[in-house]
């Protein structure tokens, strides 16, 4: 429902604002132009994006994802000691994070959900500290190759769709650290 409110809000604000500033004439053309440009955007980014989801699938099938997952395990044992005691949960979490890292969103979510379900057993609907941490990690996920983004940039005629990668990596690394730090801090002060 949030999106329904957001969409209606944007359209209504546009109408009111357009009436106040005298830009009303441009609105109808803008709405149609926006719809058209959505199709153009999708078509233009289609090639780059599908090529990369193809490469990601190859990585998945030759078990590069599993290798990545095993690299995560020592780190996860320290971050989530309770959940890591159950080997199946640990496997799901590390596979979840490595799929996130490779940008395999469709694969990452079911794995993460499996881990979250196992971690939430017997907690009566209240998120444990470790479950909070897992979800925060997922909301701030690090992606090695943001393929959708590269597709959009390529469709807009950038000189190099991947030249922002170092900035993306440093930014997401920092934001993951901030999320971890915030979660650890809040765990100490949060009541109930």
């Amino acid at each position, binding site marked *: 429902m949030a999106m329904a409110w957001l969409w209606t809000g944007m359209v209504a604000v546009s109408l009111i604002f*357009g009436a106040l500033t005298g830009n009303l004439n441009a609105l109808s053309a803008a709405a149609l132009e926006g719809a058209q440009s959505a199709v153009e955007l999708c078509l233009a980014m289609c090639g780059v994006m599908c090529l990369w989801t193809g490469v990601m699938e190859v990585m998945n099938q030759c078990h590069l994802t599993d290798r990545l997952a095993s690299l995560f395990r020592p780190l996860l044992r320290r971050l989530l000691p309770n959940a890591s005691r159950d080997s199946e949960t640990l496997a799901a979490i590390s596979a979840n994070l490595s799929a996130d890292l490779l940008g395999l969103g469709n694969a990452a979510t079911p794995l993460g959900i499996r881990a979250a379900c196992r971690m939430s057993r017997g907690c009566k609907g209240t998120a444990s500290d470790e479950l909070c941490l897992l979800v925060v990690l997922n909301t701030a996920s690090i992606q090695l190759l943001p393929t959708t983004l590269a597709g959009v940039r390529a469709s807009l005629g950038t000189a190099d769709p991947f030249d922002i*990668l170092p900035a993306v990596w440093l930014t997401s690394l920092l934001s993951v650290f901030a999320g971890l730090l915030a979660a650890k801090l809040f765990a100490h002060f949060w009541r109930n």
Partner: protein
Amino acid sequence: MALSTLIVPVLLTFTACFALGKRVDVYSALTKGAEEGLTVLLHILPSLIALLSAVYMFRASGAMEALGTLLAPALDRIGIPAETAPLLFIRPISGSGALAVGSEIMDSYGVDSYIGRVAAVMLGSSETTFYTVAVYYGAAGITKTRYTIPAALCADAVMFLASAFFVRLLMGA
């Protein structure tokens, strides 16, 4: 030569050789994955159509510029370009909404401009916070989310600041 110009050909070759060494049918895996990409695009197209028409109306009415002007003094102080203000609101709420707003910003300020790059890094460095929280806790039957959302929003705030900072540091303003 920039490292990023090598990433694509090297990654393609490495992945193909590695997979072939593991006796994986590289070609059919590649096309299967490409088909998945197509499904993803098909799924986001309807919401992109809806959202981009609203975003274009929002811009044409002058409301987007007003929002930027309103927030410019505060954003300037912390080093975030005011033109990316709409993205700050929509990034945690909707993935396709952020894609719509972000691509519009990149298009109108130039995809290789400072503003366009900051918008791109903001898009690429985070997940859709509220959606992720809803999906995970919904599936796990969690109703008391405790500090999950505040902590995730802290990460988002740092992400916005860092996007502007690292683009300026690594690629110039």
